[in-house]
Structures are given as C-alpha cells and as structure tokens.
C-alpha cells in the first residue's frame, strides 16, 4: 500500500516537474507546479508529517500558487520565445545538472544506515504524542523567538510587496526623478 502510494505520487511529482519544463506557456507551468506540490503533500503524509502536509496544501498549493496565477493573468504573460541565450544555457546547463544529480545520488546511495518509512511511523512518538503536538510544543517553547520573528518578516514582506507593486511606487518615482534631473541639467 505504502509502496503503491509512493510510486503513484512520486510519479506525479516527477511528471509534473517535467511538464513544468516542457510547457511554453506560464499558466500551464503553474498548473504543473500545483500538481507537484499537491503530490508532495501526500508524500509528507506518508512520512508522518501531517501538519506539513496541510501547510503544504494551504501555503504552497493555495496561497503561493494563487499569487503566481494572479500575476500571470495580470501581466497577460504569453508564450516564451526560444533565443540564443536559452540554447547556450542548454548546452552548458544540462551536463552540469546531470553532474550535480550524479554526485547527490552517489552520496545518497552510499549513505549507510538509512531507515525505512512505515505508514504507522511518525504519527506518534514513544510518549504517545501526535506529530502536531510535538511540533507545537517545540515551536512555542524552544523556538518561540524565531517563530515570532517570522511574523515580523511576513509583515515587512507585505509592506515591501505593496510598496513595490503600487502605482506610486519606486519605479515611477525613479522616472519622475530622472526627468526632473534631465530638466535641471537642460537648464544649466
């Protein structure tokens, strides 16, 4: 059962990732990425991380990908054009990537003492606590400060996103400044 689930969703993952690369339209790539993220959530469940599976669906497949699709539709992004740069990247990039993958795979395959994943594992620990209970306990005691700092980070990210994307943002401010400077140098 575990094996079948692993193969099905690992297959979805790889197929989605390859589909992301092959599609030329960004919206199709975004949909392929949603498939990858959702099947990763199932793999997290198989590894006994229920909270992360839920967070993966809500944060990644939900929030982040909705943001991506909104931007794609907002900018009306069309098909990408094949250029000289992409051919050069292919010629140099593919051997490099194959080398990276080979190195990582060799290290993984040579690693000793890697265990197995069982369906019943990881849901509870020796004391009978669920995964969510353990996570919450560590997150709100040992790692309380980093957890609160992330909320500040998110707040700053919101402010930055609004400042960057707003119409009165730095981009148009920059053009106005430049025109202003051009006028002044013209006067002199």
């Amino acid at each position: 059962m575990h094996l079948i689930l692993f193969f099905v969703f690992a297959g979805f993952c790889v197929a989605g990732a390859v589909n992301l690369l092959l599609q030329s339209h960004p919206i199709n790539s975004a949909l392929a990425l949603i498939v990858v993220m959702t099947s990763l959530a199932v793999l997290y469940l198989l590894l006994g991380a229920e909270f992360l599976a839920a967070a993966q669906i809500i944060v990644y497949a939900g929030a982040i990908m909705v943001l991506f699709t909104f931007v794609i539709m907002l900018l009306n992004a069309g098909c990408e054009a094949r250029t000289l740069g992409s051919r050069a990247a292919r010629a140099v990039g593919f051997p490099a990537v194959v080398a990276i993958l080979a190195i990582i795979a060799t290290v993984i395959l040579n690693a000793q003492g890697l265990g197995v994943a069982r369906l019943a594992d990881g849901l509870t620990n020796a004391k009978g606590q669920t995964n969510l209970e353990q996570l919450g306990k560590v997150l709100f005691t040992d790692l309380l400060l980093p957890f609160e700092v992330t909320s500040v980070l998110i707040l700053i990210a919101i402010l930055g996103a609004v400042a960057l994307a707003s119409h009165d943002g730095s981009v148009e401010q920059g053009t106005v400044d430049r025109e202003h400077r051009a006028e002044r140098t013209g006067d002199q």
Partner: protein
Amino acid sequence: MNINLAQEVPLTWYLLLSAVLFSLGVVGFLIKRNLITVFMSIELMLNGVNLSFVTFAQQWHAVKGQIFVFFVMMVAAAEAAVGLAIIIAVFRARATLAVDRIDRMKL
C-alpha cells in the same frame, strides 16, 4: 538489509526523489526564458529540499527537521510576495518578461 516492500519504503528513494526534483528545478532555472517560470523553478527547488528535510526528520525521529520545513515555507511565502511584486515592477518598467531582454539593473 531485509525490507518488506509491501509496507515499507526505503528512505533512500525519498532522498533520490528530492534530488531529482531539485535537479529539475535547476534545469528549469537554466532553460526557461520567462521571468515567472524561472521563479517557479526556484519554488520547485525549495520543494525538493523540503522533501529531504522531512525524510531526515523521519529518519532520526526528530521534529526539528519538520520545523525547519515550516520556516522554509514561511520564508518562501514572503519571498514569493516580494519577488512577484518585483516582477510586476519590472514589467511596468520594461513591458517584457523575457529574461534575455532584462539585462540591465538600471531603469
């Protein structure tokens, strides 16, 4: 190692899957010519690394690995928000999303 494959999957396979996902993300980063798709490839790499974090958390029965993934997700959300805002700003200034044509930092 004697593994009953009906109920158990070796963690090596999960790690190999995460390596493959990461490599596919690198390939996408290199060959895609659209700014948004390049950004999506970065998200794919982040997901591959997250899978290996969860796998190692399972290997050592340590919940800290899962917490690391939680923090990666939070940072990825912030990164996506800021990155997409930058993409909108770039599009407004250049009217293109092709990375080959966005070759100068100056406006």
